[in-house]
């Protein structure tokens, strides 16, 4: 599938002309597009396929960062909802342009703060959300019609989505006005991050329900963010990250079509989330290949007609796993290089990691340095002045082709595994341990390289003098857990238990009927102050749970 790159039956002069016209229709940023020495630079150099033209190798939009920089979206969440609300406001004041929420482990796993499983984990690695009351605290005094919010949650995603919708409506904002993304990508949970609740098939039903609901009611919402980030963090190679992520995307497309949606009704709202690791050119090749592969498959295999269905738009986060606990300040340099790769790869939004994250959640200061790092890339380096500035480089073009070739090999394997269905191939690959095995093999190869000294990690296995560590780490006090338990108890005390029970019974009844969309009963349930875990359990009665086979 890689012999007709970009020509798409158009003469190159005609394609150039089309790009030029599209480019000129878009307003430009009000800055001087010249080097720091005063040399003016064109928006684009080199040949087609031009940005904004199929298969979008050079960018999803005709003008890219010439008209609008990427969204600087910093992930935050710790302690109580009120603590995180404070961090959100600080990020908005500091020039952040989107909110991104990290939830604590019990919330991610569908457990309440008073669950036996939650002990020691409440508010530790993100914010604790038990009921609608916490969600209200989290977004207090933030106008939800004026921000775009990203929520990183998967297993219980529809319940958290229901709480967000209810919070907005309580504050007088219509759900149709809400903009943002919920990660809601369950396949990579079985493959890498391991935050699943139900088995794969009922989980996919919940995802398609949310896709149907948002495509009908919430036109500005992205119901799934198909995420390679965690696959990479778990140890995969760049090509595996690319291939597994896009294969998961194809699987969701097949599932949604099977659930009765037309591909062009939902595909324009799908978005992606990739890792930007330290091997600079490999990452850039990966990003460029992702756009080309997605466009081609959506058009050719899934029959998309709407150009927007073919656009691989993605968020990028620098590689947490590349951060070292040794000589932690060095991580600022790593993050800067990874952020630059994300920008040169054409990301739509970017999170930069804080240098102290190999030890703890970031402090306010380290989070600010991380934001400043991407602001330097955006405003000082000139990298945002020219679209796809590395396009046409023999090495970068080769790397792009090579990433694509390796990904296509994996698609072939999955397609065969699923007898002609990528969806079935992904289910089978989860079932038979293919994904976790491939990822573990790659992680082990990498670690052996480090252990043997063949792969140098500065400050870890070479250049180790001068490690002073980092003492000034964010500490989450145990009071958070105490506070949250009291909060939960008082919410439970004040609610109408009968209304809760009735609403939960409806959730169970709807779960039993696969033709019913779960979202309305979930929204009704959270409005009664039913807890996240209660709602999870109401569905678990029908869906069961998933237990991974422990394989090394």
């Amino acid at each position, binding site marked *: 599938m890689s012999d007709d790159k970009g020509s798409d039956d158009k003469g190159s002069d005609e394609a150039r002309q089309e790009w030029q016209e599209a480019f000129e229709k878009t307003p430009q940023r009000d800055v001087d597009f010249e080097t720091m020495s005063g040399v003016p630079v064109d928006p684009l150099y080199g040949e087609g396929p031009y940005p904004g033209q199929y298969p979008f190798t050079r960018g999803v939009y005709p003008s890219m960062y010439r008209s609008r920089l990427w969204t600087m979206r910093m992930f935050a969440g710790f302690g109580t909802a009120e603590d995180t609300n404070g961090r959100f406001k600080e990020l908005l004041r500091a020039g952040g342009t989107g909110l991104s929420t990290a939830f604590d*482990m*019990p919330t*991610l*796993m569908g*457990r309440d703060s008073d669950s036996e*499983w*939650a*002990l*020691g*984990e409440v508010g*530790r*690695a993100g914010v604790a959300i038990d009921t609608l009351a916490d969600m209200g605290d989290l977004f207090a005094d933030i106008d939800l019609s004026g921000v775009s919010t990203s929520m990183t949650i998967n297993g219980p995603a529809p319940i958290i989505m229901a709480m967000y919708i209810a919070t907005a409506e309580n504050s007088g904002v219509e759900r149709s006005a809400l903009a943002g993304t919920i990660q809601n990508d369950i396949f990579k949970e079985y493959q890498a*991050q*391991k*935050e699943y609740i139900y088995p794969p098939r009922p989980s996919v039903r919940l995802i398609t329900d949310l896709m149907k609901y948002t495509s009908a009611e919430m036109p500005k919402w992205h119901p799934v963010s198909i995420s390679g980030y965690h696959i990479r*963090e*778990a*140890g995969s190679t760049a090509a595996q990250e690319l291939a597994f992520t896009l294969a998961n995307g194809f699987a969701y497309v097949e599932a949604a079509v099977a659930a009765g949606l037309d591909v062009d009704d939902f595909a324009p709202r799908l978005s992606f989330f990739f890792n930007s690791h330290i091997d600079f050119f490999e990452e850039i090749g990966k990003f460029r290949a992702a756009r080309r592969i997605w466009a081609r498959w959506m058009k050719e295999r899934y029959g998309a007609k709407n150009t927007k269905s073919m656009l691989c738009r993605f968020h990028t986060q620098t590689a947490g*796993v590349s951060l*070292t*606990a*040794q000589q932690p300040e060095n991580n600022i340099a790593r993050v800067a290089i990874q952020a630059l790769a994300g920008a040169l790869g054409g990301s739509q939004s970017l999170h930069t990691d804080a240098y102290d994250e*190999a*030890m*703890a*959640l970031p402090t306010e200061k380290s989070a600010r340095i991380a934001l400043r790092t991407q602001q330097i890339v955006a405003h000082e380096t000139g990298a945002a002045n020219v679209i796809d500035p590395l396009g046409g480089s023999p090495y970068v073009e080769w790397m792009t082709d090579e990433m694509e070739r390796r990904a296509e090999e994996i698609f072939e394997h999955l397609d065969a595994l699923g007898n002609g269905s990528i969806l079935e191939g992904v289910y089978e690959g989860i079932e038979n341990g293919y994904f976790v095995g491939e*990822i*573990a093999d790659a*992680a*082990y190869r990498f*670690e052996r390289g480090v*252990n043997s000294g063949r792969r140098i*990690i500065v400050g*870890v*296995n070479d250049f180790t003098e001068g490690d002073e*560590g980092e*003492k000034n*780490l964010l500490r*989450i006090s145990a009071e958070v857990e105490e506070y949250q338990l009291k909060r939960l108890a008082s919410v439970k005390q004040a609610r109408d238990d009968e209304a809760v029970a009735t609403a939960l019974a409806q959730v169970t009844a709807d779960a039993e009927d696969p033709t019913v969309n779960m979202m309305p009963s979930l929204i009704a349930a959270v409005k009664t102050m039913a807890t996240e875990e209660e709602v999870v359990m109401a569905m678990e009665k029908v869906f069961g749970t998933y*237990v*991974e086979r*422990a*394989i*090394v």
Partner: protein
Amino acid sequence: MSDGTTGGDEPLRVILAKLGLDGHDRGLKVVARMLRDAGVEVIYLGLRQTTDTIINAAEQEDADAIGLSMHNAGHLTLAPRMVDAVKDAGLDIPVIVGGIIPEEDAIELSEKGVAAVLGPGASTEDVIGAIRNSVTT
């Protein structure tokens, strides 16, 4: 590679597990393979274990050590619970913790009976050395 024995001819037997909800299993899997390559017998329990499931496995498998991996900042609560559970079960098996553990927390964990704490960047030799030291002392 270090030799994965207790010093005599018997290979070390080590339980590896994730206690609680934390799903970050990359590090634990890598350690499992490294230890196996070094001749250690690894009993890999995997995710979402409780102190009870770990104690049961340690008894049944006659384990020399319990290795826990923690990446979710829950270590100050969870690791001492494991140490206490081992004591309460009347067992004399060292508990070793690896993962994202700030230095000062490592000191606190040692005070609470954790036999060794391994941070990010620990080599195979470090891991095996820590297990052997814990078992022999």
